[in-house]
């Protein structure tokens, strides 16, 4: 099985995993291990300066030799906010990689395409390696690719919805249209969703809630690892064409005649 390469960097796994919403840090660490991932996302938030028990920096738990870090701009509604958040992330984490998220509203968490394109342009000019979370819209994806983004990350379904790949045909068109890696980001609910996306030929999947929110996150992380490997292998193997009528698999010659 071939490896995922983004912006010249080779990854061991085709699964990118979010670090949010696990029952506890220990379960998160075990789930990350079980998923086989070597690329994880984090968020940038204000430091709690009032109490010592504020949200701990996740970087105290993460071995950066083992995991590459992809900071996101989650929660940003404008290009301005997203650009500043990405710049803060670069300073805090010493990485110029960013998962660019500019959302349109709180209910759907769908991307705001005009703000996304604006932010992507500014961040690319500022030397960032930009991986935009975007709609499953081939034209937006092509624009992002033409601009110089390192990958496009169309959603399969709304963030955290677990609805799977709602428009596999668009994902397939996006895969056909552009030359940079396509990562399905958001929407995966269970292993078959991940396998289906990989069978469409996408290069990887980014997920968080599907693992963190499962009844048994570590088991689900293992399931996702296997599903992504299986889906990728099936894609590389080249599936048989679908046909309406049967085609015997056993030879017809040499049948005994009564």
């Amino acid at each position, binding site marked *: 099985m071939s490896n995922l390469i983004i912006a010249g960097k080779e990854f061991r796994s085709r699964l990118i995993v979010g670090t949010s919403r696990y029952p506890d840090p220990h379960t998160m660490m075990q789930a990350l291990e079980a998923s086989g991932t070597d690329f994880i996302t*984090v968020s940038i938030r204000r430091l709690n300066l009032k109490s010592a028990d504020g949200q701990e920096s996740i970087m105290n738990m993460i071995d950066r030799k083992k995991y590459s870090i992809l900071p996101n701009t989650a929660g940003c509604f404008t290009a301005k906010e997203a650009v*500043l958040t990405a710049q803060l992330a670069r300073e805090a984490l010493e990485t110029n990689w960013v998962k660019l998220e500019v959302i349109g509203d709180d209910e759907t968490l769908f991307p705001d395409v005009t703000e996304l394109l604006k932010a992507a342009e500014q961040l690319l000019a500022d030397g960032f390696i930009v991986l935009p979370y975007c709609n499953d819209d081939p034209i937006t994806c092509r624009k992002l690719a033409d601009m110089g983004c390192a990958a496009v990350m169309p959603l399969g379904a709304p963030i955290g919805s677990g609805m799977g790949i709602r428009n596999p045909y668009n994902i397939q068109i996006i895969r056909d249209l552009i030359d940079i890696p396509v990562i399905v980001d958001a929407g995966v609910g269970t292993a078959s969703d991940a396998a289906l996306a990989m069978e469409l030929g996408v290069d990887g999947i980014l997920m968080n809630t599907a693992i*963190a929110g499962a009844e048994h996150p570590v088991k689900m992380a293992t399931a996702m690892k296997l599903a992504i490997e299986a889906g990728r292998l099936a894609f590389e193997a080249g599936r048989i064409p679908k046909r309406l009528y049967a085609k015997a698999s056993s030879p017809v010659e040499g049948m005994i005649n009564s």
Partner: protein
Amino acid sequence: MIYHDSIKKQSDTMNITINGEVIAVNEQMKLSEFVELRLSGKEPRGIAVALNDMIIPKSKWNETALNENDNVEIVHAVQGG
């Protein structure tokens, strides 16, 4: 000039907004001293500081002076998807 109601402006202090909250600090404070005070002894590792929406690299904190009504953000990485 308009000042936050709850904060009395005194001659030797200035108002600074830190992570969305207005506080009064000594005038002529440098960003490096300000960050050190806010962190109350914690190591300034894995954090980033923005002053009025501009990133100030750690190497420049010492030469950056704070001014009345400046807006400072101190952030770090947390769990995220």
